[in-house]
């Protein structure tokens, strides 16, 4: 049985196509990612087509399609819409089972919002928090900073480790932080130090959200922001424990959606 999950985020759209092998195992057949742009519907269709063409299938081969994410309601060909929180929990639970760990707390650092999800032993959501409507502490914040400093987000990790005298970014507001960083650059601060400051400030925001729910051990870090080594290190330093990140953290939600799809199809 083949199903697909489409995660239409505020920045990128992700598609994962899976096949169910036996009661607990799935095989990821294909995945694709593209920018959402201003036409979420079109980009969802194209990303799905893209993922399908990689394995020579067509939309008819899909038994169940679940759309999720901020633009989940924009597409018309899906069977169901489910929020990214439920999907993220599902995806995480399966991935972690494969790793042989049991994640209890998920940090999902997305483009426009950050979510903290708390799970029980069976991977069910028991509580969650989301940031308020502003972009502080989200992927958008990182993107703006990366543009200002002119360093690719993927390289943040290396810069982070090389920081000698990290600076402190005081503003949490994206707009104010931007001007703060500009003035730090003007003062001649090292890029390494500024980058560590930025990562620390995001980690601080995430920590504050973590405090709002019962933080349980084994923390799983996903969403586009988890690709950023710098933030992961900053979080580990502050929490004083190891954090797990999957290889492709931005696909966790779409994967979860696809898994729920197979479950739904079986229950039909």
């Amino acid at each position, binding site marked *: 049985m083949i199903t697909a999950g489409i995660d239409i985020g505020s920045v990128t759209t992700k598609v994962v196509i899976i096949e169910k092998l036996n009661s607990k195992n799935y095989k990821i057949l294909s995945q694709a990612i593209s920018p959402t742009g201003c036409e979420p519907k079109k980009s969802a269709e194209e990303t799905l087509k893209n993922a399908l063409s990689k394995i020579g299938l067509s939309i008819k081969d899909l038994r169940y399609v679940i759309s999720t994410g*901020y633009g989940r309601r924009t597409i018309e060909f899906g069977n169901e819409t489910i929020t990214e929180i439920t999907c993220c929990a599902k995806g995480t639970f399966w991935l972690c089972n494969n790793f042989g760990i049991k994640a209890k707390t998920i940090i999902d650092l997305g483009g426009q919002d950050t979510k903290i999800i708390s799970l029980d032993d069976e991977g069910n959501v*028991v*509580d969650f928090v*989301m940031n308020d409507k502003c972009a502080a502490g989200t992927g958008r914040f990182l993107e703006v900073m990366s543009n200002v400093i002119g360093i690719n987000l993927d390289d943040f990790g290396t810069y982070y480790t090389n920081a000698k005298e990290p600076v402190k970014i005081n503003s949490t507001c994206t707009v104010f932080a931007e001007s703060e960083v500009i003035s730090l650059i003007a003062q001649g601060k090292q890029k390494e130090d500024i980058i560590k400051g930025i990562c620390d400030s995001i980690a601080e925001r995430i920590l504050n959200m973590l405090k709002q729910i019962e933080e349980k051990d084994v923390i799983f870090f996903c969403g586009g922001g988890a690709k950023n080594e710098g933030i992961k290190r900053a979080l580990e330093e502050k929490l004083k424990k190891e954090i797990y990140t999957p290889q492709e953290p931005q696909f966790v939600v779409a994967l979860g959606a696809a898994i729920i799809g197979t479950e739904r199809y079986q229950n039909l």
Partner: protein
Amino acid sequence: MKPNFWIKICSKCFLCKYVRTSKDKTKLKYKVFNKIKLFCPICRAANYSLKKIETTHKIDFEQRYKIEIIKKTDINVVQNIKETNKKILQLLHKNHNRPSTISYYEEILTSSLRLDELKETKRNGKKIIGTFCIFVPEELIYACGAIPVRLCAGSYDTISYAEEVLPRDICPLIKSSFGFKILGLSYFELCDLVIIPTTCDGKKKLAEILNDMMPVWILELPNRKNLTKAKTFWLEEIRTLKEKLEKFTKIKITKENLKQAIKLLHQRQMIFRKLYQLKKTYPLLLNERDTLLIIQASFYDDIKRWIEKTNQLYNEVYSLTLDSKHLNSKFSTQNITTQPIKLLLTGAPIIWPNYKILNIIETTQATIVADELCSGVRSLYDTTEVDDWSTEGCLRALAYKYLLPSTCPCFTESNDRIDKLLQSIKDFSVDAVIYHSLRLCQLYDIEFYKIKTVLKNYGIPILKLHTDYSPEDTEQLKTRIEAFIEMLKNKNQLK
């Protein structure tokens, strides 16, 4: 001079009689003025100094530095408000199985029907008195022939105009309400007087600003309602209010007209309770949006007509329950197909047309079975129980009714509120609680932590929605609410 001497010289004089019968001599000065035409020489002397107090009582605010607040005019607002109303009505009309009587409440809230009626009544010499919150005894207003309207507003469209005077960082309810005044719109403009209880800081200061635009009276509310001295104080406030109203309307509040008013409101609360009781057994008969329509129409409508219409509505809804095909879960005023998740709604007031979160909740597979909102059930639930029908007895009963059962967060303790929530959770077999917190209403925001923790200990999940009247966070709220419902559904399935 000894009282018994007075009694000897004058048996008709009210003051003397009062001194003779009253145990509490401190009440004397309030009790006396404006009532006594017949004085014995000694009392007349006493009355002289009382007159002084009387004049300082006439206005609540000394207008030492009166400022001029310039009204705004903008024809677009009226249009915008109409559009908003229309949009929300359209959403409501998507629901099937709504009782037919509901259109009447829609009309009261969205058309100019009631406004025109009130204009007419005003022309005929009746006073219209605006109130805020739910502490102003409407019975007193009705008793002296005036008409109360509650001015707490839920419209986003008027906020930006209010922000030219009020700061941006206060709760939207206050800004929205003041917006109507500064724009010279609707009910606010009709009011001859506004009575504002000192609940939260925003309302207190709103009173001062409004006072430069129209007559404003303050009702001093104690911070701790359960203290004996608070009760005595509040009773005094109510008594003063009665006297001021009498003077304002030039109609005396007598034992008879007060009794009539109390009975009338009792009737209103009872019919509402009956409806609420029915909702307890058949939660899907009326959804929350319609329930709030019914309740909030009563803020403005002619009370007798409201009672009559609500009786009709009750009968209509009740007859549905007799018809067995309506009793399965498929029948609902919401398009629910499975066993619904039952929610309790609590927190800051949700007032028409601010149906933002309700519109989201009621398009999921969950239903709000009960609420604990001052703009909802709380405003019509409590009744005045009088056991002594003397004026004094009525005043006492009124004072207690408006103070003691209140679960407003403006009081220091939240225990009563928690009790009430736990009771409703039990009565309505609620699965989870939605906590509405208006941005910049600190009171509700602060109480959240304690309530959340207590409810968690009882195993009741709770979701806080921190938002305001602006539509910009609708998408985020959707994700939050839907994820919460998915979580609850999952939990129910596991059970």
